[in-house]
């Protein structure tokens, strides 16, 4: 499992190659990339550093308990990001596609509601606003309850 919090951009191809390097048992890798979407001028991500890693580890452990994963990667960026830049990368590898795809969706759904990150939007006129939580994100997590 690879979990990183970083200011720097990530490269999806590099991360997929790292996840599958030397492996012949992986049959599929699910991938989700979250980007900063316009029309905001910028997005600033802050987090609760002492809690972020344990929270992400707990989310990954939950995914590993539900699906036969052969590896996964979660990278979340912090700091000031511009439209089009990647914010978050989730990769989940398994022998077969359904587990890889389902685990990828689970990981991003849980991350959005359980990991201590906060987004602040900056608009073209210089005004700023904290992003409000969305009910659809809570609903996305609720569908994984069992």
């Amino acid at each position, binding site marked *: 499992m690879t979990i990183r919090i970083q200011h720097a951009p990530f490269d999806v191809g590099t991360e997929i190659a790292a996840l599958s390097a030397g492996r012949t048992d992986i049959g599929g890798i699910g991938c989700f990339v*979250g980007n900063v979407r316009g029309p905001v001028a910028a997005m600033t*991500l*802050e*987090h*609760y550093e*002492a*809690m972020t890693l*344990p*929270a992400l580890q707990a989310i990954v452990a939950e995914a590993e308990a539900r699906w036969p994963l052969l590896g996964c990667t979660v990278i*979340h960026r912090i700091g000031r990001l511009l439209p089009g830049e990647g*914010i*978050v990368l989730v990769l989940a590898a398994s022998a077969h596609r359904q587990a890889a795809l389902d685990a990828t969706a689970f990981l*991003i759904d849980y*991350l*959005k*509601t*359980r*990991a*201590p*990150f*906060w*987004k*602040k939007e900056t608009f073209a006129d210089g005004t700023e606003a*904290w*992003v*409000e*939580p969305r009910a659809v*994100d809570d609903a996305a997590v609720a569908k994984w309850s069992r």
Partner: protein
Amino acid sequence: MTVHVLYFAWLRERVGRSEEALELPESVADVGALVSWLRAQGDNYRRAFAVPGVVRCAVNQVFAGPEMSIKSGDEVAFFPPVTGG
């Protein structure tokens, strides 16, 4: 007892600081009591904790509800609902 309190996102902006060490009376024994105590400490705290149920909490880096007990030396963080991803 002394607890280390952290504030994030708009909680930090409304309170006006990111962290502080608070000396609490013995009667403040859980998260809910701490919120009530903070609300009486000034307009900035009252604004930050104005709407009941909005502010989230973690005690020692684990999500915690209002009934979670707190003890001396704990790290108590307050923040809005998370919006990462």
